[in-house]
């Protein structure tokens, strides 16, 4: 197994894993999306709501706000010792919100949520929740808990997590006349003419769209498009709830833990 070409920019990461099976890559992708826990608002006590939105509409919008998460400080409610439906300090974070529009239309933003624990706060300050007309008022308490994406998408730590096979583009130079037609039609600009010879650069950008083959006058086409079934290019985009590297690490950790837990269970069942 090899991990290479790591490109990390803010909340996104792109990396290549070589020497793994498609099942492993897919298990990792599915775990990242559906099983890495994050914080999201799950209970809302609305004290006063004279806005144009229904209470449940408002609660839903609050739930979808991504919150920064501390996985070490909080536990999933089903694993928490308190066994309480309301939760305790180990499995619940609370927020209050109080906004009133006095003389002009006011937009309520995620930044108006006042967190109890400053470590658990909305990822962005400027996520609109509702607009209030003069005289309208909003007062509520919100409780966030850890959850998994498999229960509701609001607990998904990523907005995108994809993988693709590593494309391989090979050119049979003896059959290519170097006319350069394919170069201008490649949407990812991975083909290049160097001294009238067709060369390939940034092959991982290739989407296997076959435009180059389609515009080549030669038949059979000297360009061969293929892919490797044991090299995967991953692209992960965090919502900001967790650092993107932590999400991938957590997912791998969880798969391993699950396998060892099952192994223990099987030893007992034998």
């Amino acid at each position: 197994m090899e991990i290479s070409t790591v490109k990390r920019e803010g909340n996104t990461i792109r990396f290549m894993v070589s020497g793994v099976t498609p099942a492993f890559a897919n298990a990792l992708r599915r775990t990242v999306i559906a099983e890495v826990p994050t914080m999201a608002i799950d209970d809302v006590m609305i004290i006063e709501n004279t806005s144009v939105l229904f209470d449940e509409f408002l609660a839903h919008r609050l739930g979808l706000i991504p919150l920064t998460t501390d996985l070490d400080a909080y536990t999933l409610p089903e694993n928490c010792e308190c066994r309480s439906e309301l939760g305790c300090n180990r499995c619940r974070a609370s927020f209050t919100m109080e906004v009133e529009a006095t003389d002009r239309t006011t937009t309520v933003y995620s930044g108006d949520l006042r967190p109890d624990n400053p470590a658990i706060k909305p990822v962005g300050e400027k996520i609109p929740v509702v607009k209030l007309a003069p005289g309208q008022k909003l007062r509520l308490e919100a409780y966030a808990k850890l959850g998994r994406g498999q229960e509701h998408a609001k607990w998904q730590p990523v907005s995108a997590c994809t993988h693709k096979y590593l494309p391989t583009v090979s050119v049979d130079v003896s059959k290519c006349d170097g006319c350069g037609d394919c170069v201008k039609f490649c949407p990812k600009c991975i083909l290049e003419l160097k001294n009238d010879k067709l060369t390939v650069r940034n092959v991982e950008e290739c989407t296997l769209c076959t435009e180059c083959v389609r515009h080549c006058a030669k038949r059979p086409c000297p360009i061969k498009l293929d892919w490797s079934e044991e090299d995967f290019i991953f692209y992960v985009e965090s919502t900001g709830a967790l650092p993107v590297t932590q999400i991938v690490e957590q997912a791998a950790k969880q798969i391993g833990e699950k396998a060892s837990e099952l192994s223990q269970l099987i030893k007992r069942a034998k």
Partner: protein
Amino acid sequence: MPLNIKTLKKTRDELRIEIEGEGHTFCNLLQSTLMEDKNAEVAGYDVPHPLTLKGIIYLKVKKETDPYKTLEKALNKITERTDEFLLKFKEATGSP
């Protein structure tokens, strides 16, 4: 969801277990890892209903092998691989 297993069928060379709390994510990985073992004759899995988190793993091994052993070996292989992935990923990203 806590993991739970139930043995549905066990003969000398066959094993069918139900894993409560696991769906395609893990069962597919386990099935393909089982098939890598040359002692495994058939390995398959089924998720009977898309809304209930439950997977059924079926395994048939070649004669003179214990299906439980083959299963444990595959599970250990998965743990080894995730550990290796974690190590290499941390190295590649430079995170502590």
